[in-house]
């Protein structure tokens, strides 16, 4: 999925994991296999998770209790199509 988040990708991953542990516990968080794939510009990040836990991950990202909330812009089953669409979104948002 493509996530708009202002601070670093590491912070996105750690705050999402913290919220997920808080909401669903350590076991579900581990099983979800959250991983940063790459970043597009300073604010757009592509992250991956197991599809079985997509709902839990989306809830955790939406409910991140941080000074900088995260916005899920796109979801795809393949990285190739996500990469193409992410570039379009970057152009639409005019991110540097």
């Amino acid at each position: 999925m493509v996530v708009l988040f202002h601070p670093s990708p590491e912070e996105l991953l750690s705050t999402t994991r913290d919220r997920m542990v808080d909401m669903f516990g350590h076991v579900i968080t581990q099983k979800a296999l959250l991983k940063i794939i790459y970043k597009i510009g300073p604010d757009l990040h592509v992250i991956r998770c197991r599809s079985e836990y997509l709902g839990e991950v989306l809830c955790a990202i939406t409910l991140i209790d941080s000074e900088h909330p995260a916005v899920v812009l796109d979801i795809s089953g393949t990285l190739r199509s996500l990469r193409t669409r992410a570039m379009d979104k970057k152009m639409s948002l005019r991110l540097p």
Partner: protein
Amino acid sequence: MHVVQPVLKFKSLLGLKSIGIEYGTGNTDSIGGEADVIHLLKSKPSAPTIFRYLVISENYHDLLSKDVDLVGITAIDEQFYEMLKRSSSKKLGIEIAVSWLRKTNGQKLAKNIALIKSIHNFTQKYGNQLVLTSGASSIFEMVSGRCFDALLELCDIKPETYWNSLNNWLDHKIGMRCYICDT
């Protein structure tokens, strides 16, 4: 008008069909008549408008007020369900903001999820409508359609049922108002 444009651009990126934008107090003459925007006003305009609107309140004791369409909920007491029962004929919207849920820790969040489920069941029974909103104060706090679906599923609410009933409720509420036709 130019303040609304970035929000509209972001709205389409998030896969949302229409959005509500809160308008403070003051003159409503500067509000444009965008088709996919519903303006959320604190009080009912005295004359017909060119824009679609709903009247909102943050105090749920306004449930029985005849002008209010949407009431924001952050805490409830025993009176709430009683007032909701009494206001059933008005088809009121009960708003829960994601920005409020964000501020709660895991334990309180679990209680709030149960609360949303309970309010949804209650509103269905008495003809009112649960309205889940982002409560965003900037575009970076907005919530995408897919994330709303995930939150609804977390609350054991079927997204299709929710969106259909919200759509019907909005059509009913907005259709009741007087507007100036922009021909």
